[in-house]
């Protein structure tokens, strides 16, 4: 069951909001997780783990470093 990018973005923003209190409206495609959203590596790993479960996808550990922006993560999850 493929999800649209909009659906993934909405779901991902909810996870980011739950973990960090960052407003869902702030979680936009061009934002960098570390530089713009100030998410540290452990929080990033938490978000990845929760996203894997929510979207029923597998995000390999070695792939996580390539997910620099929210858009990178949305693209990866939507095409997985």
């Amino acid at each position, binding site marked *: 069951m493929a999800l649209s990018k909009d659906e993934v973005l909405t779901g991902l923003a909810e996870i980011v909001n*739950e*973990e*960090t*209190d960052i407003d869902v409206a702030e979680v936009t495609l061009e934002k960098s997780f570390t530089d713009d959203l100030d998410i540290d590596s*452990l929080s990033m*790993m*938490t978000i990845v*783990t*929760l996203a*894997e*479960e929510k979207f029923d996808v597998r995000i390999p550990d070695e792939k996580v470093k390539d997910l620099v922006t929210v858009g990178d993560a949305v693209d990866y999850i939507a095409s997985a």
Partner: protein
Amino acid sequence: MNVVVTGLGTTSPLGGDVASTWEAALAGRSGVRTLENDWAEQYGVPVTFAGQLAVRPDEVLSRPETKRMDPSAQMAIVAAREAWADAGTPDVDSERLGSVVSSGIGGVWTLLTAWDTVKERGASRVLPLTVPMLMPNSPTAYVSLEFKARAGAHAPVSACASGAEAIGMGFEMIQSGRADVVICGGTEAAIHPLPISAFASMQALSKRNDDPAGASRPYDVSRDGFVLGEGAGVVVLESEEHAKARGARIYASVLGLGMTADAHHIAAPEPNGAGQTRAMELALERAGLTTADVAHVNAHATSTPVGDMIEARGIRSLLGSHADQVLLSATKSMTGHLLGGAGALESVFTIKALETRTAPPTINVTEPDPELEVDLVRDTPRALPEGQIAAINNSFGFGGHNVALVFGA
């Protein structure tokens, strides 16, 4: 180097802060209630009540804070924030500020929930913050992080004496010159089916499922075990010099600390209480006091058939006939037993007793143990004398750990 108390904080079964907790204690209210869960039906957990927090941490913390911290650390942070604000947010060099916040058991909810995750959903679903949440030094580490305490962050573990030992360690950090201010105390969040089952299995818990509020009854002839409680107590300790230089309000002084070990049995106290009595003796000696200076004792008294009287006989043997003038309070009758948080919450009670000259009551004592030869404060608070007085707070832990703290004001 004199060490003083300048801030107090708690979240307990009686209230979400010191004011509400103290008010409830003076009113003789019980914080023990029937648990709203199905652990008895689902798992056969034999005890269906506990002293749960009056105010859940998620009512006062942000959502990310509750997700990143085990409940034990959440409670410690709630109490530490109150204590720090109560101390007037001291201006102190970060390298002269310490943190000593203990837990007896550690992040038991995190550990066991993560194991459920492994079994039910697989190892890949275990969250990356699991280790920093379950480690027993997590509460002190979060306190250190929040207040930038860089003189050292410690978490001495000694079961139900942990919170008192933490305050003792904070006292020694200041006395030895390692710190000017130390945030110290204890926390516990162990109301989970596994610890309840395990304590019940060793016959340590009261089984009064039909009378939760009456179950914790230290020194009563029908006491049948302790009642599990949860929560945290935190005190801000400070060198007297530092406190006076900033014009801080001083509640009391920490005058003495006595720590001994029974080396007798892994769980049972030494039957003659020699180790416990020696801890009290050492604490008074270090304080430079005599037994005549003691006006109040907040007992460890957990409401177990054996433990309560070992301690009471020790107090009597130490104080002799002066015990007739010492007001003895067993506040676990109202809060239940906070394990690693107990010694810290009871230090808060002891300090409040000195400040307000009021010894809190012991509830549920309908028929005192005939062997009790200390003046027990029952049902309603009683006045402590004016002038300089001292009070002892006892805490003992499985493993034979004995800690006595002496406060004065």
